[in-house]
């Protein structure tokens, strides 16, 4: 009796699977046929062409709940960006999920884990590999071939094989890589110039000088409020990172990158040693030296005492409590903009400092590509995602950022030639000096924002044009324009004007063994270094860390990286 019941149940279940499998199959093939009919090969593929019938794309998107920039009546799904997509391409954008910036990665991981995916979304390198191995990705080789706009192809080709190679698996392009400016990966020293001036100090050339400046900022009451409440050098917050690593090599703000590179230490980077062998930067003696210095600085109160415990490091800068921090060129969009809203005299300037022993600036450099556009396997219109990205690059100059930040654009991934910042800065200087006019730069599609930058620069920049101090700016005229121009002219200047030797990591992606082991090695590294700097563990814990790191998979992973790097 029992066995027959079991047998019947088993048979029933099998039947159910077969039936559902069949019906799934027929559905898919049917839906695959219909779009290929519409865009049959006889018709030329148009990167900017609108669909005849409206189509829908469901995406995952970051929506910042604290963002109040949208005008009255607009919503994250109905704003200048989605209307542009609808009018130009006849694509209806729907949200499959939204998440606050801090939670987006979690949401993506959850979607991947549960195989409950939006039609398209923007993810990181680790997720691309994970999704590829799980068979969740649509092959985009032909989509890229036929639908990527010429400008995008030009920008991507500008990196050689690096960008496309990082998204190609077994000869198939599984994701569309972004290209971000070189400047995103260089973490310059931002410093309160007005504090320096008040205390009669010079920008610190060396780490020793930086210590002196930090000490003065802490002890000599640079903000003049009579209280010892200022911080010399900011550190990362709870969610921040001590330094940028090969997996997240760009846009690290409030890290301590500058101090490490002044010691020619590149923790988190895969380097080539003098013998040509691959080594991991975090286990080298230079890193220990830099840690010893940082530990010393922290103990002397020169670095934010509450680093790693604070929930938001940018508050210190915005609130006028911090005098120095390391960050990328675009800080004019973030903390520095908030600082000036609060205190119009907060004169934040950026420098390619501190220098190393030989007087050189040797920052680490980021990967040109950090995020990827992916399309769910089986989505009927994979080219729609590409078209939305094409449209972004084409329409970017027409968007008014005061009516909703660019982050609201669906599937926004960035395409900037590596030298965008340096190139823009030089162009702006030429125009301000009267040597050239904005029209001279018209028609260069690789730099879509440049012409409008050149036309608007005088709204926010007051004379004299070669003095970057904050009193020669007019942020209130237009905060949106100010943020951009200030970021380029102040944040970009150290990179454009300094001869520097950047250090690349040998690889910027994961190897196969890393997928199981890296998380724990990284965790061990993060905690050990943080504890060494903050003085809760002795400096020699570093040596134990190196041993543990090697024995817990580091040695094998180094071999894998070496193999990958020599390919």
């Amino acid at each position, binding site marked *: 009796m029992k066995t027959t019941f079991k047998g019947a149940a088993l048979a029933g279940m099998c039947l159910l699977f077969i039936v559902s499998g069949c019906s799934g199959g027929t559905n898919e093939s049917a839906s695959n046929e219909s779009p290929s009919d519409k865009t049959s090969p006889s018709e030329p593929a148009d990167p900017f062409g609108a669909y005849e019938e409206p189509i829908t794309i469901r995406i995952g998107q970051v929506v910042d709940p604290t963002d109040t920039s949208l005008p009255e009546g607009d919503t994250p799904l109905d704003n200048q960006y989605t209307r542009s997509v609808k009018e130009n391409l006849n694509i209806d954008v729907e949200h499959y999920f939204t998440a606050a910036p801090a939670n987006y*990665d*979690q949401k993506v*991981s*959850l979607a*991947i*884990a*549960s*195989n409950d995916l939006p039609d398209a979304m923007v993810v990181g390198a*680790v997720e691309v590999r*994970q999704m590829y*191995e*799980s*068979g*969740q990705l649509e092959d985009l080789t032909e989509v890229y071939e036929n639908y990527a706009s010429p400008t995008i192809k030009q920008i991507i080709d500008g990196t050689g094989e690096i960008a496309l190679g990082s998204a190609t698996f077994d000869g198939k392009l599984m994701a569309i890589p972004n290209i971000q400016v070189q400047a995103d990966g260089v973490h310059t020293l931002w410093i309160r110039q007005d504090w320096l001036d008040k205390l009669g100090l010079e920008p610190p050339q060396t780490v020793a000088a930086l210590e002196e400046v930090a000490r003065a900022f802490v002890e000599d009451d640079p903000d003049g409020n009579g209280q010892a*409440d200022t911080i010399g050098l900011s550190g990362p917050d*709870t969610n921040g990172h001590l330094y940028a690593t090969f997996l997240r090599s760009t846009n690290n703000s409030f890290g301590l990158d500058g101090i490490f590179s002044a010691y020619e230490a590149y923790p988190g980077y895969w380097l080539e040693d003098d013998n040509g062998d691959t080594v991991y930067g975090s286990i080298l003696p230079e890193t220990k030296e830099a840690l010893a210095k940082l530990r010393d600085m922290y103990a002397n109160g020169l670095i934010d*005492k*509450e680093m*790693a*415990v604070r*929930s938001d490091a940018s508050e210190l800068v915005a609130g006028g409590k911090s005098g120095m921090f390391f960050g990328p060129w675009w800080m004019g969009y973030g903390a520095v903009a908030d600082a000036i809203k609060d205190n119009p005299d907060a004169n934040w300037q950026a420098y390619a400092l501190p220098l190393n022993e030989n007087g050189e600036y040797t920052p680490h450099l980021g990967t040109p590509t950090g995020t990827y556009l992916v399309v769910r396997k089986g989505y009927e219109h994979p080219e729609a995602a590409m078209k939305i990205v094409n449209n972004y690059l084409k329409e970017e100059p027409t968007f008014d950022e005061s009516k909703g930040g660019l982050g609201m654009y669906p599937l926004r991934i960035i395409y900037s030639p590596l030298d965008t910042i340096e190139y823009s800065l030089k162009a702006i200087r030429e125009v301000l000096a009267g040597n050239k006019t904005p029209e001279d730069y018209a028609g260069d599609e690789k730099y879509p924002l440049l012409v409008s930058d050149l036309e608007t620069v005088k709204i926010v920049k007051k004379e004299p044009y070669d003095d970057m101090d904050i009193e020669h700016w007019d942020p209130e005229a237009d905060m949106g324009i100010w943020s951009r121009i200030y970021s380029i002219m102040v944040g970009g200047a150290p990179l454009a004007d300094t001869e520097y030797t950047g250090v690349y990591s040998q690889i910027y992606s994961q190897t196969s063994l890393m997928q*199981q082991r890296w*998380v*724990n090695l990284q*965790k061990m590294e*993060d*905690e050990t270094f*943080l*504890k060494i700097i*903050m003085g*809760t563990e002795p400096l020699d814990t570093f040596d134990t860390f190196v041993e543990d790191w090697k024995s*817990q998979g580091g040695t094998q992973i180094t071999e894998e990286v070496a193999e990958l790097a020599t390919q």
Partner: protein
Amino acid sequence: MVNKGFAKHYYLMMLPGLIWLFMFSVLPMFGIVIAFQDYNPVQGMLGSKFVGLDTFEYMFSLNDTASIFFNTIFIAVMKIVGNLIIPLIFALMLNELRHMFIKRSIQTIVYLPHFLSWVILGGILLDIFSYQGPVNQLLSAFGFDPVLFFGRADLFPFLVVGSDIWKEFGFNTIIYLAALTGINTALYEAAAIDGASRQRMLWHITLPGIRTTVILLAVLGLGNVLNAGFDQIFNLYNPLVYSTGDIIDTWVYRAGLLNMQYELATAVGLLKSVAGFILISLSYFLAYRFTNYRIF
């Protein structure tokens, strides 16, 4: 016979609860197989390749595993003991108060924090114990050096336990006060006639009168020992205190959800369930042994 029919209705009333239990507690149990697989989201639990005990071997080779289990048990046991004793003392003290208005007011004030979420309380606590916060100002007024409380791995478990007790003791006091009202007042009158002091009455009447309640709460707490409080720790911790503050739930959250190590997170979660099962069985046995409390 009539009684039997009557009882059936009661069993029927259990049905919604059983359905709920089945859907949210029994069905998710099948997720355990992930721990034994090389889990692949597309193929799912039915299609992923089985790898046997590999994940468990790796789990035991990690230094983390021992420390998160230790942390969980250490924090939870301290919480249980603290949440048992402090409300008890407080209830006994309140019980001695004869002024009803003051008694009620105190009761209301101390149980208010129970209704605030850890998201809010976490923010408040981090501010209070920050470098510039009131606690450090007080310390420096007495000539001590300021302490970065939430950055100290050695202090973190005690801050967690302390803040949890502070949040919950008012609420737990109510249970004891209820138990205290259950004591026959005739006993006190008789003792008074016999010339017993207040202390004597406390010792020989009050405490024995609520003994079963105390033991029952302690034993039930034992079954909960592996839940050291995800919300609280998640809102308070940072990388500096992972070594002593990371409990199983927060670790599983980070490993599984943030770092996509699904197999490892499931394996640790499973180990937690097994240990939890043993503890619940033990506490059930103890509850029967000491207070004659049993469900079946």
